[in-house]
């Protein structure tokens, strides 16, 4: 009975990233965001690791992993490669998407650059279609201040429906708040409720038809609406991933 389909599936993906939770007190946290928004800096500050940081996009080519503690929980932090979107145009985008999608992180922290919020928000909105458990971390507030840009963090939280934390990671400002927000979401003290985007009627109609068909096929937390959207925009690969999962289901039943 130990091998349920869910654990098997989860294990397969976790194996890719070599992440095994030692005990239920450990939480899996993914760090996503556009390139060069300071993900690696935040990663280093939280975990005390010395992942090389630098002011250029594409610095993190592999997933870095580290640990930190807050209150009674231990957190496994995974630094994902920076991407502009989750449409699988490149290896980085695919890796980031697969981890958020199949890696089942307890919370995904999305790091955005306060100086170019609009472009960063595209990725945020895409991630929020996959998972509800997300926190927005608005980094580089000092740069924004230098450029005389003000960001209304409270309003942003209301607009998106998820917790928003402002940080200046290089000066270690706001990181305590970020850690606490991660903790609160992980223990379900805060339950983010992202506002979903409403698409043009033509797409919404298709979604209404597709979602009831897809829902019974999905056994884990992946959002059926998101999968339906991917089917509509012709992402063949995501369907392959899901059929890999159903293969897993069969194997588990036999085992």
């Amino acid at each position, binding site marked *: 009975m130990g091998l349920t389909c869910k654990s098997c599936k989860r294990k397969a993906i976790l194996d890719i990233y070599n992440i095994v939770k030692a005990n239920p007190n450990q939480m899996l946290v993914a760090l996503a965001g556009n390139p060069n928004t300071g993900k690696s800096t935040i990663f280093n500050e939280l975990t005390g690791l010395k992942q090389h940081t630098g*002011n*250029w996009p594409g610095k993190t*080519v592999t997933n870095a992993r580290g640990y930190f503690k807050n209150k009674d929980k231990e957190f496994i932090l995974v630094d994902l490669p920076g991407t502009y979107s989750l449409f699988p145009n490149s*290896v980085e985008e695919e890796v980031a998407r697969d981890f958020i999608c199949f890696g089942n992180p307890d919370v995904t922290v999305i790091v955005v650059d306060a100086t170019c919020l609009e472009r960063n928000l595209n990725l945020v909105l*895409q991630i929020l279609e996959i998972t509800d458990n997300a926190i927005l971390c608005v980094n580089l507030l000092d740069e924004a201040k230098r450029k005389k840009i003000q960001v*209304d963090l409270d309003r942003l939280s209301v607009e998106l429906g998820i917790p928003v934390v402002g940080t200046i990671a290089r000066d270690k400002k706001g990181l305590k708040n970020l850690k606490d927000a991660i903790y609160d979401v992980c223990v379900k003290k805060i339950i983010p409720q992202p506002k979903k985007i409403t698409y043009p009627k033509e797409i919404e109609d298709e979604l209404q038809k597709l979602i009831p068909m897809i829902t019974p096929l999905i056994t884990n937390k992946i959002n059926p609406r998101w999968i339906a959207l991917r089917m*509509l*925009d*012709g992402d063949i690969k995501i369907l392959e991933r899901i059929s890999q999962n159903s293969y897993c289901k069969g194997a588990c039943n036999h085992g």
Partner: protein
Amino acid sequence: MVDYCQINKSDIYRDYIVTSLYKRANEIEKAVVSYSKDKKVNIDDIIDLILTSKLTGFPIMLLILAFIFWLTIAGANIPSKLLANILFSIEEKLSDIFICFNAPSWLHGILILGMFRTAVWVISVMLPPMAIFFPCFTLLEDLGYLPRVAFNLDRLFKKSGAHGKQSLTMAMGFGCNAAGVISCRIIDSPRERLIAILTNNFVPCNGRFPTLIAISTILIGTASHSFLNSFLVSGLVIILILLGIVVTLLVSLIASKTFLKGTPSTFSLELPPFRKPQIGRIIIRSIFDRTLFVLGRAVAVALPAGAVIWLLANITIGDISILKHIANFLDPFALAIGLDGVIVLAFFLGLPANEIVLPIIFMSYLSTTTMIEIESIEQMRQLFISNGWTSLTCLNIMLFSLLHFPCATTLWTIKKETQSIKWTLASFIIPTVVAILICFITKSIFSLLF
């Protein structure tokens, strides 16, 4: 027909989806972000225009490089000498202790004259330049200048049939070729990634910079420590680096026309904003992560190498030391490319880490010469001249160092990244052939002229 319709439809759907996302992002941005009107904001754009324009981009790049090298060369001289003095006085003390305990002379030879002395040379020749060069380099990285360099070089790489991002991986190679090879992962196309991996070691890594700097100083001469001299030396180093870039482009071009055919894929390179550098962190990071790491590796390799050199120089077979035997054996080949047997041997012994090539050459000469103590680059110059060095020798050592096979760490990384012994071998053979060929050409030109 049905397939065609579906693909068409999903394209339209994707357009709808993306448009909705953008629209929503724009709405949110309008609601939460407010700008104070300020003309100063545009200063960054103006700086970017100047740094990346076709007209001024390259000259500024060269000037910045020149300034860093000049600073490194001019600044490293005095601390280098100081370090050597201190460390050699320790050597005397250590020797006294050995004499005191009546230790056998071979033990003293291996430990002090072999290992300790080589380590001292590695430290005093390498530490000061690295302590100046690395923070400067990290500063440029932190400021956001490196991607601008990549932007400037992008067109050249495209013309060579390589990927524009190769300029970034090349820039990483200046730090460490192994790191450069790993960074090639940012290139998606396997063909272009291979080109980038194969050519990465044509830019000098941190381990080879000190060699290049020391040899150019010897070549130009240190009779007077004038500013002019340091400028000439840094000018020479820059010419070598440019040559390295030219060779990178040429080899990329040849590769993409022959065994790695294809057209370059397009990509977008984002220029990151200029950010205020964090001086404290730069110094700490560059000293601990880079300087001490590179130095530690060099010393770790230098210690056994020093012992080996001492043994080779002191064990004799038929009146001549083994070192001499090997050097004599390599001489015909070495002389044909304007080097000598000792130098070629040093490059092979330096395979684990390029940093120790110069110290090995040095120790080899010392062990066969009666010269006891060397305190300055000027004396080093005398030692080399007495071993038959000419300007051609200096030039060819620099060329060989710049172009030859990558170090063991880099090779191992290439093996891991390409998962192929064939390409690992290629990354050893291609640079070696290029290095031998170019050294042979300069040698031939020299013998025609003089």
